[in-house]
């Protein structure tokens, strides 16, 4: 997906909770690319414009698992803490 597409998709899926502005989106995408978690290539958009597309790499997939795992542990812990009080 290209940058704009990613931002729109996140907005859509989270029901408007997360609106990723370009000022945060682009630095984040570029940092992830530097870390090797995503790779980029130029392609054509739906409106026949040249746009930069991003794809998850194998290392990225592994990192995704790690982050997902971490997030699950955190949210579980918070849920338990709230339960207890």
């Amino acid at each position, binding site marked *: 997906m290209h*940058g704009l597409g990613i931002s729109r998709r996140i907005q859509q899926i989270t029901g408007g909770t997360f609106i990723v502005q370009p000022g945060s989106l682009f630095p984040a995408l570029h940092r992830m690319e530097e870390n090797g978690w995503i790779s980029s290539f130029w392609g054509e958009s739906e409106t026949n414009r040249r746009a930069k597309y991003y794809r998850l790499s194998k290392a990225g997939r592994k990192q995704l698992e790690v982050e997902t795992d971490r997030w699950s542990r955190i949210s579980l812990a918070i849920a338990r803490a709230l339960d207890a009080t």
Partner: protein
Amino acid sequence: MKIRSLLRNLISVKRADDDLDLEVQSHLAMLIDDNLHAGMPPKDAERAARIELGGVTQVKEQVREARLGNWLRSLITEWGYCFRQLRRSPGLTSAAILTLALGIGATTTIFSLVYGILLRPLPYPEPDRIMAIFELSSKDRPTRLADPNFDDFRDQNQSFQAIAKYSVGIATVSGTSQPVRAVVASVSPGFLSVFGTRPVLGRDFSPEDSRQGAEPTALVSYGYWSHVLGSPRDLSQSRLRIGRDAYSVIGVLPAAFQFPTDADLWIPADLEGANPSRTSHNYNAVGRLRAGVTVAQANQDISAIARRIHAASGGGGNYLLKDGRVLPLRDSITGKARPALLILLGAVAFLFLVACANVANLMLTQVSVRGRELAIRSALGASRARLTRQFLNEATLLALAGGGLGYVGALAGVKELVMLAPPGLPRLDSVAVNVPVLLFAFLLSLIVAGGLGAFIAARATSSGVRERLADGGRGQAGSQGSQKIGRIIVVSQIAITSVLMVGAGLFGRSLLKVLDVNPGFRVDRIVAMDVSLPPAESPESKAEQAIFFSRLIDGLRQIPGVRNVGATSGLPMTGGLPDGMFLRMNQNEAPASMDALAPLFRQKARAESADFCAATDGYFKVLGIPLLRGRLFDERDGANSPHAAVISESLARESWPHQDPIGHTIEFGNMDGDLRLLTIVGIVGDIRENGPDLPPNPTVYVNLFQRPRAAVSIAMLSDADTRSVSAAARSILKRMNPEIPPRIQTFSQVYSALLGSRKFNVILTGFFGITALLLATTGVFGVMAYSVSRRTQEFGVRVALGAVTGNLLRLVLGLGLRTVFIGVAIGIAGSLALTRVAESLLFGVTATDALTFCGVTFMLVASAMLACYIPARRATRVDPVVALRHE
């Protein structure tokens, strides 16, 4: 991956930026498309899209900031900016770099001297465990050791894992292609263990080699082995003749081993048996501390043993040791040079400060000029940290450039310094521009960078930004502060310079005073030739020595141009004569043996001390030593006549206060083994044999022909050219005995070598003083010129209000001179306090010598006045109309 990205970010910057630009533009385009698709009119669509994007440049900047290695990129950009800034004012930049190069270069040069001599560890394993061991005389002076005392130290100590004695002499060594004069060290077994060294070829001395009467063996230095012996791998054929004995070479020492300095051969010390006297101080001693033993403990140990010896002898007179002392070897070698070296380091540090002050002033003027630029940058959002960083960067670039140039200069400087250095300076061979010196230069540059940068940055960012902008760029308020600081810097420069110049002046006057002293003997037109015969034991061989020298002297007298020839056991200024105690005796009291002397020495009324010298009558005539009373040696003093002695004037005065010593008899056989009494026949003038700055020693001269010896210095007084005389002398000696290589030098060479260290100090401090004066004068000129240029408007108003040339001149000159006077006053006060430190190096002048102080004050005020004059004239030429419009 990260590293690859980092490299990519740094190298293909343009490509990454273009890519980013395209991406953001395409994002914007897609946003506009969406808006158009949603039905917005084109203008609104674009506007809404741009608002949502948040600005193309801002987004790009945010991406750039998040990039890996961004800090490095901005650092490189900053440095590039600094570099361009500096290039914009090439005059200022080069002046700053050259001044820094001078300061750092000079300091580095002196530091390499100090490091090589004082700080660098000796080139042996664990060198700080090697100690030098001394006896302390009754006057608390460290002296060499007597054999039995060394034996006691060796056997009774508990602090040393290895301990050895050594002495050095010069001998003729033959057995190779030609006989050479070599430096021969006599050492006890265990000498090499003290230094942790082993021979690279062959073996060390064994205990059997060192016993009395053993077959003589020798170790050679690497240089001697390669240059003289021709690097033979098999040593069994190498035999050398030293004196009358043949020595087999058993080992070769490593090239780096050089103890004692310049030694070519090492032989066992006691092959002829040890000297039983406890008052003949023949040997130096070294030892390696046992693990865990401190220097203080070793000191106590040796001291206790020494005091035990002293107590056991029951008094023993002046020449018996009173105590013992242990010193780290390096300190004992370099101790005498330390005060002068540290003073030189202090002097060059002052020069360094003066140079840095000049650069600080240079950069300060820049700050005022660039005040407006800084104000604008500040208003545009540059943080104070960013501006400070810029000045730090500039200072660092200047300092590193100056430091690099200075280091290169130091390479040449050290070479010059080593050539100039007095011959007595120890460890000169370990002075080099090596890694520690490089590190020092680098650190110095960094300190300069930090100090200068911080100082300038503080000045630049201190006054409010708004003030500067409001001034319209003229910045009069700011410049007044700058002028004041500039003047403070100049005052300190002048103070420091005056201290330096006073020091140089004091050293210079000391040298002149030393040169003025009459040494008591002639120095010019004398050629000296050192000859070493093989040692003689029997009376017959001793007589042969006497005949040999007599014939040699006669032969030398025949050389055309030679007026007189004399011989002596020790020329002045070549290391000093041996001294000892002699006894007053009655004519028929001749002692039968050496042992009979000991009880006599204990009788205080009989015992006196003096230097001992064997000489011919020609010696006194050649050196111009006047005969004051009585006679010199002549034909009356034959082999069977009473032995004659001539004494120096001070000895006559001190030991025979109201009598005529002529005709009295003394016993001085403890010095050369000949127990025959000496009859005093004449009194000669005193000579300062250790140099013009030391008092003369009382001396007893015996007749060389009656009491011959093997090593003799022949002095020839000639009107002819020295080279022809030397050549003729050499060939005469060769004809008489080709096995003996002489050493020939002119006496004046020896004399000027003696003054070497004084000249060295004068040259260096003089150079620092003059350079500092030039720098300080330039500093004064700079500050005054700057001040005048800033005050043109004020001068224009004054002229318009009726001031004349004289008023303006007085105004400017007055300010300048006030500054200089304050500086000189502080400097003189500082000098009065500081020159005390150098008192031990002065001669004939006090540390508060009025002439020097006045001279320095005069020179400083004169140069400063000169420096102020030109800006002052410029101030008077101000056209009031132009000035009033001057912005």
